[in-house]
């Protein structure tokens, strides 16, 4: 199934956590470089995908998050540094709340999945901010000093925030720690790996590269996947922050723009890339013998299960449907399209890994 965001290039797509037939898409005119943004709230039915609500913004928009506290609310990350809250139950086409603190493009917003009363944003201004929708100002600002493309709350903890940024590091903040000089930072993990130390183990060396996206695993609550400009997807276990990547997934031919772990299988994730494909992967964690095409280094090498080639421009948004038949995803791209499809159609014999009722 397909929907056209005519005149607007997709930047993010998210399934509603409440309804299996509702999606929201953030899209921007002129590839998000200059011009308006648009938030589409889409409904799915047997006849296809329909726009239920469309909101205009004066600048580009780059990400969105469904409120966990209200089934009708969506927050939107703006290129002008603003964060806007829209309520589809409210009359009119204006945001019901708006926050203006970031000095540059806001590139990610994500809700607190435990307390459901706060959300986090990250921006090119080198900060991550924690907000409550009922407060007019942010509750906390966490500096990263580099363009921060993605931020999230841990799925099982109300006080752990993660982010990834252009300095090639994954940062983990624990808001329960005292706000000392480290600003709650508990782990600073170089995704490209630690520098070699005298007498240490031999490892393949990777160049630092901007990290554009990350996601917490839905079953293993200490596992995070990151991906970005070096085309590799890596998984890390934050119980061993100095241990380097647990698995590396190699295959994309250009930078990876978005990743999302499956809500149904603990080892499966989907990725969208500048190479115009969306790919489904396993990180090998459920396999007794994960593949290791090169023996240097401790990490496993995941396998690609299949890829979706229908998009004709950069794939920027991916998300899994939480409900119904396992394996349904939505993707959006700069080709002005939102595609809803079943990953099992590209997975060959591995399709049976998803439970079919």
């Amino acid at each position, binding site marked *: 199934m397909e929907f056209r965001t005519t005149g607007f290039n997709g930047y993010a797509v998210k399934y509603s956590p409440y309804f299996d037939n509702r999606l929201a898409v953030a899209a921007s005119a*002129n*590839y*998000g*470089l*200059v011009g308006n943004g648009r938030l589409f709230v889409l409904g799915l039915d047997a006849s296809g995908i329909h726009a239920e609500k469309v909101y205009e913004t004066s600048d*580009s928009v780059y990400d969105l998050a469904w409120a966990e506290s209200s089934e009708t609310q969506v927050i939107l990350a703006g*290129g*002008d*540094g603003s964060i806007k809250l829209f309520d589809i139950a409210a009359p009119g086409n204006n945001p019901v709340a708006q926050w203006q603190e970031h*000095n*540059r*493009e806001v590139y990610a917003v994500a809700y607190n999945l435990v307390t459901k009363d706060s959300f986090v944003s990250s921006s*090119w201004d080198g900060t991550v901010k924690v907000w409550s929708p009922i407060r007019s100002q942010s509750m906390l600002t966490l500096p990263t000093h580099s*363009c921060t493309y993605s931020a999230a709350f841990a799925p099982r903890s109300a006080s752990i925030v993660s982010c990834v940024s252009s300095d*090639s590091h994954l940062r983990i903040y624990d808001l329960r720690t005292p706000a000392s000089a480290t600003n709650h930072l508990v782990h600073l993990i170089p995704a*490209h790996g630690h*520098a*070699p*130390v*005298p*007498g240490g183990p031999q490892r393949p*060396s990777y*160049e*630092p*590269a*901007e990290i*554009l996206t990350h996601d917490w695993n839905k079953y293993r609550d200490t596992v995070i996947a990151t991906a*970005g*400009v*070096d085309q590799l997807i890596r998984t890390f276990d934050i119980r061993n922050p100095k241990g380097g990547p647990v698995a590396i997934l190699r295959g994309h031919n*250009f*930078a990876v*723009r978005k990743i999302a772990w499956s809500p149904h299988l603990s080892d499966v994730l989907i990725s969208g890339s*500048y190479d115009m494909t969306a790919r489904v992967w396993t990180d090998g964690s459920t396999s007794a013998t994960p593949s290791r095409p090169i023996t240097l280094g401790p990490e496993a090498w995941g396998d690609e299960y299949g890829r979706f080639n229908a998009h004709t421009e950069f794939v920027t948004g991916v998300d899994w449907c939480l409900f119904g038949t396992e394996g349904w995803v939505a993707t959006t791209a700069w080709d002005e399209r939102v595609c809803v499809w079943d990953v099992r159609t590209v997975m060959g014999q591995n399709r049976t890994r998803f439970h079919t009722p």
Partner: protein
Amino acid sequence: MTTAGQRLSSVLSHLNPLSSGRSKLLQKNPDDIVITYAARTPLTKAKKGGLKDTPIDDLLIALLTIVREQSKLDPNLVEDVCLGNVLAPGQGYMARASVLAAGYPVTAAASVANRFCSSGLLAVQQIANQIIAGSIEVGIAVGAESMSTCPDNGAPVLSTKITTHSIASQNLQPMGQTSENVAGDFGISREKMDQFAATSFQRAEKSQKEGWSKDEIVPITVQVKDPKTGVVEEKVIDRDDGIRYGTTAESLGKIRAAFPQWSPSQTTGGNASQITDGAAAILLMKRSKAEEIGQPILGKFCGATIVGLEPRIMGIGPSYAIPKILSKTGLTIADVDVIEINEAFASMGVYCVEKLGLDPEKVNPRGGAIAFGHPLGCTGARQIVTALSELRRQDKRIAVTSMCVGTGMGMAGVFVSEH
């Protein structure tokens, strides 16, 4: 607030990251730490050369006076001077007093940095860190050593807890022994060492004859005592005196081992660094400050780092320090145009070049400490002066400077020329 251009360049950098480390490093930002003046004295042989009768404070005063005059900087703006020095007794007194005697106001502070052969680079890092942290706005880093007047007597008497400790006790090994350890442990042949040393002499000879090193050196006027007549004369010293013209690997191969007591006894007076006097100075501030006060920007400091390793093979420190600073600055070795590695000994020089797979043409293109000497505290700053001058000559951009450090360390820094 935002331009479409910035957003476009962000997307382009995602698509074309291959040169991103280098291109990022070459960006010019207002808070860059820039160098607006860099110069060194000639390096002359200890006990024999033109600086043999110049005490460390006179050497320092002479160079700081030159910095003050030639940089045309208002000396009232200098908030701190950090002296990299290893051997001078009473370093703290000497540093502060010399700063004042060189014509800086009482508001110019002074401190001393000592991490053996990396002291000059450490001084640069100390000043740069203060500027980064906002503690000061303008500072001078100096590396200076008078090995004629402050001899290196090796390790002092140390605790039995050190002398009986398996690793700490290695710090008692003289540097010559660590050179033999490197040659022995890693199978570096005498022939390779002599070839490396001969290349250093030949390049230094070419640099001196072509006048390249003139660009680094400021002549200084000092008192010299004639060893025969005892007459003291004022002389202008304007060139390095350690470079033996016409040196070849064959001629170096005839020199006797300097350390027959330590196997494999391949280190000689010809393939080890010379004992030398000299000083070098670097003037540092933020780019925004340099533009505000109209100082010319020669280059910028992009970062430095330090590693530790077993003291008995301290020479191979650069083989760890260089990858570490490259990783921190997002560079690959191919991005680097000039690599200055201090030639403490040819054994470690050969090892580092081979281990890191360096292009020998990029390493010490004007020769190094084997050819013109290694005044311990000066070298770290001297290599920066040399690297910036060589980048200008070649019209290249990025230099890495590194040195092994006695007691088992390695330091490295990255500099960009903005000629």
